[in-house]
């Protein structure tokens, strides 16, 4: 297995395991302002990804990302399936069309974020996963090539997820609560933050070993 494929495989494994470990927290956040299934849904999707990890990491990177997306779409069982699924499908699609990592990371991530926005007919500020993904995209653009990029991305995601607490939800089940959605962290923003942190941690571990 190539170095890149090996890095990718361990990165996906760490990210999926982190989401699975966060399932109780995601569920409890979702019980506060939603239907309480975000943790179990994401866990189901990530377990399915782990179950196919060998097949996924045997693919070229673009196809591997699309396989992750399709697996999430088919197994998650809530709106987060198509939302996260579209994220990975679009990232894979961008890499199939002349984009390359790491140099085009912001572009590829941007395509993925746009796909989430289109799928959910939503944008930042509505108390959703986009409230983490959009700030992370901004940091990827503004800090591209910076030696401390990973650290800045982590900080961005951590701050962004906290900023969802005072927001009033206007999308998803939480919007049914109106003003009562204020004061709670959005579960989708939290799962996005968990994924971003896991990817950062995995890449940092890689750097430390080099």
């Amino acid at each position: 297995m190539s170095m890149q494929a090996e890095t990718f495989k361990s990165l996906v494994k760490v990210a999926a395991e982190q989401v699975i470990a966060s399932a109780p927290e995601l569920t409890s956040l979702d019980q506060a302002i939603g239907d309480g299934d975000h943790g179990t849904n994401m866990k189901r999707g990530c377990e399915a990804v782990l179950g196919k990890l060998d097949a996924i990491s045997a693919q070229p990177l673009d196809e591997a990302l699309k396989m992750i997306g399709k697996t999430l779409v088919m197994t998650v069982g809530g709106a987060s399936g198509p939302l996260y699924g579209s994220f990975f499908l679009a990232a894979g699609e961008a890499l199939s069309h002349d984009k390359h990592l790491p140099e085009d990371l912001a572009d590829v991530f941007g395509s993925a974020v746009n796909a989430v926005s289109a799928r959910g007919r939503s944008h930042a500020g509505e108390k959703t996963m986009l409230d983490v993904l959009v700030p992370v995209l901004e940091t990827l653009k503004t800090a591209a090539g910076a030696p401390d990029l990973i650290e800045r991305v982590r900080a961005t995601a951590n701050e962004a997820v906290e900023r969802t607490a005072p927001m009033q939800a206007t999308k998803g089940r939480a919007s049914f609560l109106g003003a009562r959605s204020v004061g709670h962290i959005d579960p989708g923003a939290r799962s996005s933050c968990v994924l971003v942190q896991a990817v950062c941690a995995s890449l940092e571990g890689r750097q430390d070993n080099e």
Partner: protein
Amino acid sequence: MSDTVGIVIVSHSRDIAKGTADMVRQMVGSEVRVAFCGGNPDGGLGTSVPSIIDAINDAWSAKGVAILVDLGGAETNSEMAVEMLEPARRDHVVVCNAPIVEGAVMAATEAAGGSTLAQVKAVAEELSAD
């Protein structure tokens, strides 16, 4: 029977989806193909893209298929399922912006008269017009 638009009902709850399909059949009998699904891939409350794809194919008609959904995730998963259909079918399936029970009954009644997919969708969506 293939001369009428097919109806698919997608609820978070299999019981609601089945009950809605029962009400539809009471109106239109077997004149219209009706399929339903509900529940996540583990059988709990939620929706499942593979089940929605199967339901669309079960209700398939040359005139197309109209999908009625309950809440957000059912809509998002139905839109995703439509995009994953084979290309020849993709453009002949619509998700209606209508209440699930009334929408399904009215859509199926319209379909039974031989209306087009656009007409069936429009009738279901009149319910959400105001």
